[in-house]
């Protein structure tokens, strides 16, 4: 006998619908919008936005902290269902672009993502949680499927390169955890990227100051 009770939709079904009908078109519109807001800015390598994949979302929804589910309401609590990234050249550029982000977007969080201690490795960049602007929302998208916020990261080329390689090597599903030796080698690459970023920025600031002095 069939139950007359409607079956509760699984998180997988709910998110898949959100992903297909709302997040994918929003990611496209968000890319265009951010590109437009930043179009006058020099030294931007690229701007991208993406909808968080179904597998990645479901994996994140399962996260446990101290033996308890971190996300009891993942559809509302996970704030990077829409994620955007602005890649710029130098560390000084991040500060300049920070002002543009705050000028055009309403933030409920902003911070530099750094490791918890100076002995840990990792090289992440600046991170924001921003209100999804209504000018990217097409009237045809169901309001209930639109997340309130999106995540924006501003990274230098080295931060971007390091975090992409680190993610590929360290966080692929099905891979065994990193060995201590592998962790040490990743820490080495992180320090190298950190050093290169600082050197490039020093050079940029020196050259820029010299250029301005010549122009006076």
């Amino acid at each position, binding site marked *: 006998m069939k139950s007359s009770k409607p079956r509760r939709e699984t998180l997988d079904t709910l998110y898949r619908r959100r992903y297909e009908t709302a997040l994918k078109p929003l990611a496209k519109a968000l890319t265009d919008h951010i590109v437009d807001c930043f179009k006058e800015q020099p030294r931007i390598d690229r701007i991208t936005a993406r909808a968080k994949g179904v597998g990645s979302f479901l994996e994140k929804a399962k996260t446990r902290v101290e033996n308890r589910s971190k996300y009891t309401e993942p559809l509302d609590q996970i704030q990077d269902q829409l994620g955007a990234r602005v890649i710029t050249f130098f560390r000084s550029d991040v500060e300049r672009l920070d002002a543009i982000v705050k000028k055009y977007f309403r933030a409920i969080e902003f911070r530099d993502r750094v490791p918890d201690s100076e002995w840990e490795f990792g090289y992440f960049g600046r991170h924001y949680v921003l209100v999804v602007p209504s000018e990217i929302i097409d*009237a045809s998208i169901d309001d209930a499927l639109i997340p*309130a916020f999106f995540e924006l990261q501003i990274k230098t080329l080295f931060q971007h390169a390091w975090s992409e390689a680190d993610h590929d090597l360290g966080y692929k599903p099905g891979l065994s955890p990193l060995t201590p030796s592998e962790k040490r080698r990743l820490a080495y690459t992180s320090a190298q990227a950190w050093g290169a970023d600082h050197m490039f920025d020093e050079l940029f600031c020196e050259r820029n100051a010299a250029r301005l002095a010549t122009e006076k």
Partner: protein
Amino acid sequence: VTGGWEGSLSVQHIHAFLVHPGRGIKPKPVVGTSVARSDGTFALLDGVYAKSDRECDVDITFRPTSDGKQQNDCRDLIVSYLNGPTLAKARPIAERLALHTDLRSGLGLLFLIVGKEVKEHKIVFSRFPTDSAIYVDESASALTVEFLERVFMKNKTSYKAVLYRHASLKAGFWSGRAIDKQLNNPSGEPSNYWISDFLLSEYTVTPAAGTRRLALALREAAKKSELAVKQELISAANLASGLAGQRISIDSFATQFNLSKSAKDAIAAELKSARVGQEVFRFDLSEYRTLVAYKSVELNNGALLTAQFSDFDKVFQQEVADDSKDEVRFSTKGKIVNEKLKTAP
């Protein structure tokens, strides 16, 4: 209560507090009470609750901490109250309002109205300002006149309200909608104490973002419209320079400058949804001037006149040359400083 009442049936709790000014002076204790469903005031407030979705028209968002953490003291109080709406949990909200109310804002009556609509929690704060009034009772043989010192009135310009609704008490309640009729009416009262100080919030749309939307919509609408609408939009665009610092929406801009239906439709066609037109922001003149920088007029004889938007009418003097042919004559005087060849548009 008669006329205009829109009962919601979803209101579950109402708490009321008399809030004395406590900013810069020793605050008086905040006294509060629960409003019972049987009380006549309950029906009035049920109407306030029901109308709030329509009346609260300014989108606001809680601020993060100054160092960027996703935490806000006012939001914390609201979420804590919604997790168990008791008089004791409501009191810190009223105390917070007292701390941010100065003598110019005066005594107020704050109602916290909590309801549940399907899956969503909804809360409305409604602050009635105080006033004095004269009460008259008429009987067959006499008229009794009484001076009332503490009358709380919703129709005063200093009435304030805010509405929040969300299904999740954990992740939601970051954004809401407010009423603050004083935002464009300097009346001596600090106009930002309700949204900025008490609610620790900002307009959801930043001044630059809102102004950019308006400027781009005007620019694109003018580009695509027929000449008469184009001229109407450009006139409005010129007048917009006088809006510096004012609270507007794209819709209110069109109403304020009395745009025709065709001009309004042309602007609306440039917006992704009606909501974009309704969102309120503070007009940012410097952002506007970067986006609406130049005005060009093209004549049928091949002439193309361009000048900075704000100076165009000073740079070029226009007069009627032949009214029957709609011909005009432009004149200007200056020293040649540059010449350019341009590609075809």
